[in-house]
């Protein structure tokens, strides 16, 4: 039972961290959540506050 709980917490933590990262990137305003260049590639344009990707 305890082993299952630990594995459940580990899996939950991994997935929720991934989801949180996607959410955070999306909130920053760029078009490609999880891409490290989300805010700076020619398509990102977040840093100018004019994201063109709708």
């Amino acid at each position, binding site marked *: 039972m305890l082993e299952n709980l630990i594995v459940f917490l580990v899996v939950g933590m991994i997935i929720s961290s991934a989801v949180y990262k996607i959410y955070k990137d999306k909130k920053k305003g760029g078009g490609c959540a999880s891409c*490290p260049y989300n805010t700076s590639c020619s398509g990102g344009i977040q840093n100018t506050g004019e994201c063109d990707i*709708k």
Partner: protein
Amino acid sequence: MRIALTGNPNSGKTTLFNVITGKVEHVGNWAGVTVDKKEGDVKGDWNKTGTKIRIVDLPGAYSMSPYSSEESITSNFVKNEQPDVIINIVDATNLSRSLLLTTQLLELGIPVVVALNKIDLLKNKGITINLKVLSKKLGCPVVETSSILKKGMVEIIDQAVKVSGKGQKAPFQSSILNNDELDKKAYEAKDKERFRFVDKLVKETEIREVESKKQTRQDAIDRIVANKILGIPIFAAVIYLVFSISQSWLGPLIADYFVGWIDKLYVFVDGIMGENISPLLSTLLLDGIIGGVGALIGFLPLIMVLFFQLALLEDSGYMARVAVVMDRYLKKVGLSGKSIIPMIIGTGCAIPGVMATRTIRDERQRRTTAMLTPFMPCGAKLPVIALFSGVFFENAAWVGTSMYFVGIGIIIGGALIVRRITKESSAKSYFIMELPEYRLPSIKRAYVSMMSRAKAFIIKAATIILVCNAAIQIMQTFNWNFQLVAEGMENTSILASLANPFAYLLLPLGFGVWQLAAAAITGFIAKENVVGTLAVVYGISNFIDTEELALVSGANDVASIMGLSSVAALAYLMFNLFTPPCFAAIGAMNAEMESRKWLWGGIAFQLSMGYVVSFIVYQVGTLITTGSFGNAFVPGLIAVAFIIGIIFYLMQRNNQEEYEALKELG
């Protein structure tokens, strides 16, 4: 304090921007890499003034005229946003061309500091510039810099801070830059005067030796590399070599060790969990997360080797020649010569590629290019290519090479079709691109480019791909009653029932099973998902052998698990490469096309192209290899005939309308 970085295309603005801000924006040894402004703070290493300085890197511009989109970004920014100082990056090896923009900037009244960049190349080219005279004649500070060697960085920032707040006098006053009423002809007339002024200025400040031996050698290389007959075979040979190194030689060698670590992690976690763990949790962690993501990460070394080579090619100046070679073909099918730039950028990622279409002024050409750019295999599609070329084809390199050329073929064919459907006549375009000099590519720059792409790949695998794989694993584990699916009964799972209807549509293409349909669908979220999903649905955690130093051993095992013939595998690969790109790239298409009709037309066209190409490859390939057509030939033929019929109808409809309009006119 805010400083704008301006200058001609390929003068080294983004390289300088990266040095002084510590950012890693994409740079290339050719014009047109930057199509939008980028901002960053000056690093303390270069800023000894104590003032907080924000730098804005603007797209390259030859002049301040508002007649091209990227130039208007630069023009609008400096006119409307009034930066405190303008740092004008001037290519010291091409002073006469660069100073045209400088004289225009000086007219704005904003303090200007000229960064005389690429000074490291002056000696080799036999050019001497009198800095003092140039500075005096321009009426602004001139600082020698070399972005590549990081020379003059502190001085340029120092000078910018010193002139901030002071006015700027112009040596040449045309008084047209702030007059938006003037038409293009008036601008051109004034520019002629400006050219004369710049010519005089250059004569007074620059001593240039006659054409050097090196330039002649460069011209000789260009005559071969950009030759209209030899250009394409040379490009094919270069891409073949790139794929050979990344997928047949060096890549698998590194991948073998890498995959060994992932396997060890899998075994280690499996060992820790023991027997008492719930099968659901165990399979979710081992097969869904470690297996699915690990299968994709296994291809990282191959991708890194490939990107390293592409960065070397770009830095050497070769990719600009590819643009010239392709220009003559694209022009013939009604595209702008500029269309090739988005397509080359699209080989890295389709999104910046589609965004780069904004430099094309003609609306139809811009929309067509945005629609066709995703046909170039992007970085996300490379693991899919690597997987299928490795599993099903011994000689992996030709598969990747041919995918690029099939992509180019579809682009050319697609452009012809779109031109016939839209029937809009575009002005004949002339592609003028300054060819950068060949140079020995920098290992460091290629390394930085490779690492930045590797970072992108890993983050994507650890986020979107991981979440998708977990969802796929859960959907495969449960049926609609939320009961665990028994082993061997996966076709009763939620995933199978969702993917099955699509699988029927794919039967004529040779891969009508729910597993492959599910992988193709998840590919629309991110193309790497195809590999991750295949790993999850087939329970394969390792597509790359750890026993032998060859890509995807156990190739026969993997192929037999998937139950595909080589021909069907090739058709499946093409379906994934040539159907619509990921949703983010579709979003970029939407932004650049600015038309719902064009967007949906584009998506329908991409779907149709992927379906038709896969059908032809599978059915013709099966006919050649087995002597008879493949599965579901007749329904597939009907579907393909329907698609082709619609395309012909749309093409003919315009002809008919044109005919009737002409008839009415008598």
